[in-house]
């Protein structure tokens, strides 16, 4: 590839102009692309039409193959996360393999429709053995537990934004990826943050200023932390950031625990809003308790700001170094544990762990650190992807021919004794419009 810049097709969610950043993928994109665009030739692919984002060209993700044909990319890069907004990207990764950055490991079973009936395992087998024929289109295969296998199967390196995610991946998926040419690597790549100086002073406010982010449903553990707050003797005030759809549920909980007058609800979750809240807070609650979803980037932002973070020691909260956060062990005594931590924090400077939390985030989350690490990973993955992408495109050429065979089957099936007409109608059409040139892109 010489000294030219690597061309990267960067797949991400991007919100419509004027809408807040609502996904981890866009949050990471917005921080990292400005630092990487000088080093790499990046084009962003998302659900929006053509334009510009972060100073690089932006296209609709369905046009990636056209861009790739016109000027081939060296590497397709995908960020994967659960939730509606990430679905179209998950379908797309079945179209062209690349480097994946997984923000959720246990991608929900309620995936995009195209994934529900994905013939991925058979496609993968065909990739390694072109002699395997395409399947009949009868009963569609049903993929019960995606678990990132489909999304990482042809990736020479899979990145994880939580250590727990990487560990689970290594435990459950890596063994199934022994076939990847050149081997498969998994790496932890931390959620990026911009380190900011805290401008707020605690002097003058006797209340413990607490902020919380997350769901009002069970996984957010509001039914555990609200009774703890209700029992806390020290004066306190809570600002709780929830999705608009959960406001009613949150209000019911506040009323049930008799704390409505000491809680402010903020509708709509966004990293920018969280950063604003962090400027005048002592304690941040990150008590999500589910193998689905992730804590980021809110937890990392809290740690970077030196605000005491209370984290559920479960799933992605499990592997946070213990000198950087206060951990709650899930189970019967969550409320008592949360109350204990809050009481302890109210008796001393809540910034007890600020130094170690900030040191940790500076060493692994600071955005320039993440960008540098990402650069190295891209450079190391690109050579391995050359063969993967070439072989994959060969599979597409075979698929195009299999498709035309299917068309022939329909057209040539005799109806009422009349002969078929593939050769007279379809074949000239395919040739005239060069549709048979679904051949591999040239590298």
């Amino acid at each position: 590839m010489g000294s030219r810049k690597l061309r990267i097709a960067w797949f991400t969610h991007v919100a419509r102009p004027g809408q807040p950043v609502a996904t981890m993928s866009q949050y990471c994109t917005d921080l990292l692309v400005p630092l990487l665009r000088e080093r790499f030739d990046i084009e962003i692919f998302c659900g929006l039409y053509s334009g510009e984002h972060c100073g690089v060209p932006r296209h609709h993700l369905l046009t990636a193959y056209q861009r790739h044909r016109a000027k081939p990319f060296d590497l397709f890069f995908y960020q994967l996360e659960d939730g509606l907004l990430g679905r179209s990207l998950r379908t797309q990764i079945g179209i062209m393999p690349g480097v994946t950055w997984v923000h959720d490991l246990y991608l929900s079973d309620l995936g995009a429709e195209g994934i529900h009936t994905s013939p991925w395992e058979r496609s993968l087998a065909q990739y390694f053995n072109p002699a395997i024929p395409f399947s009949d289109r009868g009963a569609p295969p049903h993929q019960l537990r995606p678990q990132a296998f489909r999304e990482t199967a042809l990736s020479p390196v899979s990145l994880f934004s939580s250590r727990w995610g990487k560990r689970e991946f290594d435990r459950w998926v890596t063994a199934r990826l022994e076939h990847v040419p050149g081997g498969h690597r998994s790496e932890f790549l931390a959620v990026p943050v911009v380190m900011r100086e805290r401008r707020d002073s605690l002097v003058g406010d006797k209340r413990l200023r607490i902020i919380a982010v997350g769901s009002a449903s069970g996984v957010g553990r509001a039914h555990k932390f609200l009774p703890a707050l209700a029992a806390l003797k020290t004066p306190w005030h809570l600002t709780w950031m929830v999705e608009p759809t959960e406001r009613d549920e949150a209000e019911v909980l506040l009323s049930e625990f008799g704390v409505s007058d000491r809680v402010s609800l903020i509708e709509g979750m966004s990293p920018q809003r969280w950063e604003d809240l962090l400027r005048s807070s002592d304690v941040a609650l990150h008590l999500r308790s589910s193998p689905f979803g992730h804590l980021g980037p809110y937890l990392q932002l809290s740690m970077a700001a030196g605000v005491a973070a209370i984290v559920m020691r479960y799933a992605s909260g499990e592997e946070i170094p213990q000198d950087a956060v206060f951990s709650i062990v899930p189970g019967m005594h969550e409320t008592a544990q949360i109350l204990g931590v809050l009481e302890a924090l109210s008796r001393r400077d809540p910034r007890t762990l600020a130094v170690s939390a900030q040191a940790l985030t500076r060493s692994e989350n600071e955005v320039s650190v993440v960008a540098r690490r990402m650069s190295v990973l891209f450079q190391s993955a690109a050579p391995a992807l050359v063969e993967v992408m070439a072989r994959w495109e060969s599979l597409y050429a075979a698929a195009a021919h299999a498709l035309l065979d299917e068309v022939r089957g329909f057209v040539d099936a005799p109806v009422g004794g009349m002969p078929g007409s593939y050769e007279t109608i379809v074949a000239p059409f395919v040739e005239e419009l060069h549709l048979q040139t679904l051949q591999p892109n040239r590298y």
Partner: protein
Amino acid sequence: MARILVLGAKVPFTHGGQEVLVATLVKHLRARGHEADVVELPFDPLPKQNLIAQAAMWRALDLSEFAGQQIDLVIATKFPTYYARHPKKSVWLVHQLRSMYDLYGGQYSDIGDDPRDEALRRMITDGDTTVLAECSYRAAISKNVADRLEAFNGLSSHVLYPPLPQGNAYQSAGAKPYILSVGRICRIKRLDLMLEALPFVDPTLSLKVVGVSDEPGAMQYFTNVMNKNNLAGRVQFLGRVGNEELVDLYSKATGVFYAPFDEDYGYVTLEAMASGRPVVTATDSGGTLEFVRDGESGRVVAPEPQAVAEAFNGLVRDPEGAKRMGAAGRSFIESSGMLDTGWDAVIDGLLSPLLSPDIAGRNKVIGV
């Protein structure tokens, strides 16, 4: 006067916006003295593999002359009619094969990550780009459709909004206590959103549904939703109705529900506005948003039952406000060329290849 063929692709036994557009275009071409006729082939979206063959069949048609008579111009309307061959071809694009484009990856598309599906998507996209680029004149029925064409195929087009099918016939009368829903009964039109909303709507309002199902299982699904919400006494399925009856139904509705997912254009929106009725649509309804202004000519709400219900309850609570929105809609229609007078601009555009060899080009909104 020119000899012109308008090209349609019809799913037998269904009737939707495209059929209305083809019929009214031919009517207005003839009214201007042109010799115009329709060429239609049946269209079947299933099985998806066979779409290639259907495009090929249109490509195999030579429409340049019939019985020794030269055809001066063909006007294509939607996939796969624009694959037809003719030296002077205009397209008035109703929509492309949406499952390959804007609906891809969602619940309204059957195109997945089977490599054959991706091969099919690329074949259709590449084929569309080639044959639409051949057109001497390209127009789309809405900005929404024009934007898709530009984004996915890199082709610019004019925007020619179709004038209303019943021209100047629409009228306004005193509001009666019903909500009107008009359109094909299929999932993408989201009648279920209205049915789920109805239990929260003021109980004096009933729902009248005009249209027939053209999707296997859709009617049963909507009936189940209706039964689940115990709405049998409040919902009337009227099937297909005549033009006069439709005008009458529009004229007296308290409000019109029209909230499909990412609609191309939506005659219903404009028919309701022409009838002086407020339209309730959704923030993701696509083409309808080119016309409905929230709080001015109707309501634009989240695609959620409670939000839809609240919009209709607002019309009941504030009949003067509803009347004001209806009047604003009517006023917009009168000033925008959507009535019979609008056909001049449409036909001038579509027939322009007869005057000039190549004027395909810029996006331009004509008529509004």
